[in-house]
């Protein structure tokens, strides 16, 4: 069965991509229910993407090639990053089992491309969104890396597959405080990276409150579709990352069809749980003022720092 492993890796990568817009639809539906509405269909994001792909692409007359290239680079980086996360079994398609530094690097590449695309629009909104995003991402990078470093030290491996494998081998009684601290830190950072409330409101177009939306304001048609898809893949990637590192139970120990099917079911359940959690947070909390976000990320940094310190203090 030498083809089973690469096929399973390909399957889990395709799953992550296919499920991304569905996740968005699920969050929208859950939020609507929380607001006592019925909400749109779960599959509406797919229809939206299809609609955008058919439209005309408007490009500012002062823009250079970077404007057209940015969505392509952003989506490409996200697509490759999705191949690094173990979903159904503790292995990944690329980068030696999903090296976490490569993952963070690819997320940074996607974000850098987006920043440059925003600059090239030549409008004030682009610069504004880019400057706010630069602040948030500069402060979010440290807790993201430190949280993953803490787990990497515990697991003795630098790859996400290795971390998932190690966690699978732990019985619940041995749950170290490092895990709790790192999980909380990474949860806070995931919300910041994905651009959800309380850091950024993905449904607003008010000048005072936009971050991600301001960066993509000048894009339209197929380019906008690429950027929306990239954002959706980023969210599902982050949730899958949290599930793989902190709640991997249910993953198949070997790529047999039966176990993989069970793992698929459990993964969808975990994603749904994550979606409902995000929807509840978005419905109950208000967005933070922009200059309160550094305090929020400072809390995440302190938690991540403690997680790394505790790997040495609790032995």
């Amino acid at each position, binding site marked *: 069965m030498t083809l089973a492993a690469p096929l399973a890796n390909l399957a889990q990568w395709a799953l992550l991509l296919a499920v991304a817009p569905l996740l968005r639809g699920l969050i929208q539906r859950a939020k609507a229910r929380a607001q006592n509405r019925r909400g749109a269909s779960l599959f509406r994001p797919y229809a939206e993407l299809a609609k955008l*792909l058919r439209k*005309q*692409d*408007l*490009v*500012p*007359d*002062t823009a*250079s*090639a*970077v404007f057209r290239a940015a*969505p*392509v680079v952003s*989506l*490409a*980086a996200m*697509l490759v990053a999705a191949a690094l996360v173990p979903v159904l079994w503790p292995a990944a398609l*690329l*980068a*030696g089992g999903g090296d976490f*530094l*490569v993952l963070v*690097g*690819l997320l*940074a590449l996607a974000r*850098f491309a987006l920043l440059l695309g*925003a*600059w*090239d629009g*030549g*409008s*004030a909104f682009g*610069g504004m969104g*880019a*400057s706010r995003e*630069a*602040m948030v*991402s*500069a*402060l979010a*990078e*440290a807790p993201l*890396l*430190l949280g993953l470093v803490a787990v*990497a*030290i515990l697991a*003795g491996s*630098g790859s996400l597959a290795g971390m998932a494998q190690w966690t699978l081998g732990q019985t619940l009684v041995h749950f170290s405080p490092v895990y709790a601290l790192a999980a909380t830190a990474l949860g806070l950072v995931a919300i910041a990276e994905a651009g959800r409330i309380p850091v950024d409101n993905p449904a607003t177009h008010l000048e005072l409150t936009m971050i991600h939306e301001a960066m993509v304001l000048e894009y339209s048609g*197929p*380019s906008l*579709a*690429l950027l929306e898809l990239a954002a959706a893949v980023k969210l599902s990637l982050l949730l899958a990352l949290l599930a793989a590192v902190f709640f991997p139970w249910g993953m198949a120990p070997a790529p047999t069809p039966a176990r993989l099917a069970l793992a698929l079911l459990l993964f969808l359940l975990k994603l749904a749980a994550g979606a409902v959690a995000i929807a509840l947070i978005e419905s109950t909390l208000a967005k933070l003022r*922009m*200059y309160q976000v*550094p305090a929020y990320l400072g809390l995440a940094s302190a938690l991540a*720092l403690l997680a*790394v*310190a505790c*790997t*040495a203090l609790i032995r």
Partner: protein
Amino acid sequence: MIAANPWMAAALAAFLLALLLLPLLAGLADRRSRLRVAPAALLVLALLAGGALAARVLWTGAPAALDLSAWAPMAEAAPFAFTLTLDRLSAFFLLLLCAVGAPVALYAQAYLERHYAGWRRAALWALLPLFLLSMALVLAASTGFAFFFGWELMTLLSAAAMLLDGDSPERRHNTYIYLVMMHAAAACVLAAFLLFLSRAPSLDFAVMRVAGPAMPLALRNAVFVLALLGFGAKAGLIPLHLWLPKAHPIAPAPMSALMSGVMLKTAVYGMVRFSFDLLGGGPSGWGYALVAAGAASGVLGVLYALGENDLKRLLAYSSIENLGIIFMALGAALVLQAHHAPVWAALALLAALLHSLNHALYKSLLFLGAGAVGDAAHSVELSQLGGLQRRMPITGGLVLVGCLAIVGLPLTNGFVGEWLAFRGFIAGAGAGAPVLPLLAGVLALISGLAAACFANVYGAGFLGRPRSPAAGAAEEAPRAMRAGMAALAAACLLVGIAPGFLLRPLGATVAALLPGAGLLPGAGLVPAPATALAAMLPSLALAVALAAAAALALRAWRSGGVRRTATWGCGQPLMTPRMQYSAAAFTEPLRTVFAPVYRADHQLESQPDGQAWYPTAVNYRSARTTSFERSFYRPAVQAVVNAAARLGRLQTGNVQMYLASIFLALIALLMIMRLA
């Protein structure tokens, strides 16, 4: 002593001689005929040959040695030993010099032609080879005298280049500060060398290598501290960095590229040579000192760069940041070695050396790009640039590669260096140095801030609309300048996608410096994580290329076409360049978050005075004196001046007082001789 190959010695001599004699042809650069490209062409050829020599030493490990003290005229002129040896460490840095120098020389051919005329052009073409020669001497020296000779020559030649570029009181003041600080640093390095003399009969590196580990700990600590002060000041570590942002921007662009790219690395070379080779490693306190200095430089360097509007000063501060990262990795290597984890120390040292090469490549690319921009738009202020990517597509593309590399994004060489550094820091957890993994957080913060900084540089400089008429009329750079930058950009991408070819020779270099690194079973010469990375990267590059193709296909699949139209301005009929974000505005949130670092002086006055409610004019002035100048340098300088004033009272002018002091000195010397 490995017997050195006489052909290699001859090659080294020929290379150095070529660099020495090229200034004689500098006058040709001023002619109008085709001969004017001769100095540049010959310099590039000489550097390529030198690079080939260095590569041979690096790959095969056979050293090239040249003993000039036996040569009669040298023995008469300077009775100190003057030996040059290229071992693997020297060869690596020499390769770095040639790899950066050749593209810079190519670029300089067009740049110096456009900017300077007459005797200035010839003078610069004379200075360039000599400057490269001085740095090559420093790298190849294997006696204290040769090292110091090259060191001083480096400082003097670069100061000369700075003064050649123009004449103004500010320029002279900056050059003066540069000379003073470099001489103070040189004094520290000289003192470090001389301290060896109490235990070693001569200052030949081979002799010092044996005597160093045998010295008592107090003496080794003293040598290390002096070396750190001397090389740290040369490298621009905080708080000894004052000269860097003053000196680098005022030199001509090719010179700035060489100073930032190569000269700073000679300081790294000196530090590695002293700590690992001549002293043979030391207590973990040394490593932690380097780590602290490196971390402070990294964070503060990038924060100061964020606050800059002048592109060249920004790049100078960014050099401080990158040197901070290199010293963090060096410190981690020392700590890991002190904790008896030579394999991980090798990884950290590998990261430091590779990051030095990477920084040399992309920083010189960026400085050359800044030169091209200044040439085309007649300004390097970010508030005067913009829209240059459309006017200068190739230059813009190459500068973009430089920005991607300096931020450390995947598929560029910056990513490889930072990946190795991260792994080196994480290794501290298993080796009993729990502080080291926390450095991963510091490096991540530096990385994030650098991304913001260089998104700002490229965005404000090249994207959007031109903010000044000159920027709107910019022309593409001449072919030679583009070719030089392209060579550097290609090197950045090559090391980023296929670093494997460098890893074996670097691994051998590092293994020679860290005894025990290669002796663990299964360790091999290259640390396992490095090999793993080299295996990952090509497939990653392929994956990104395929994914980009897929994204393009998806976009073009059912697209309704592309239409160029004006940017929507919320109903405004006319969009002016001033409606865009400026560079200062982009960094404003980050500068507000890190406000305690900047401590700018604000002055706000409204006129007429005393009538705050209906002013006729409002003036706002904000000036930033770097807090180090205020709190560290000025008090230090003041203390020295006060002490000098007090000592000046000894000069009474009375002849008998002077005779008495000479007599007292003689008696004191006789007593010391008697007691010793």
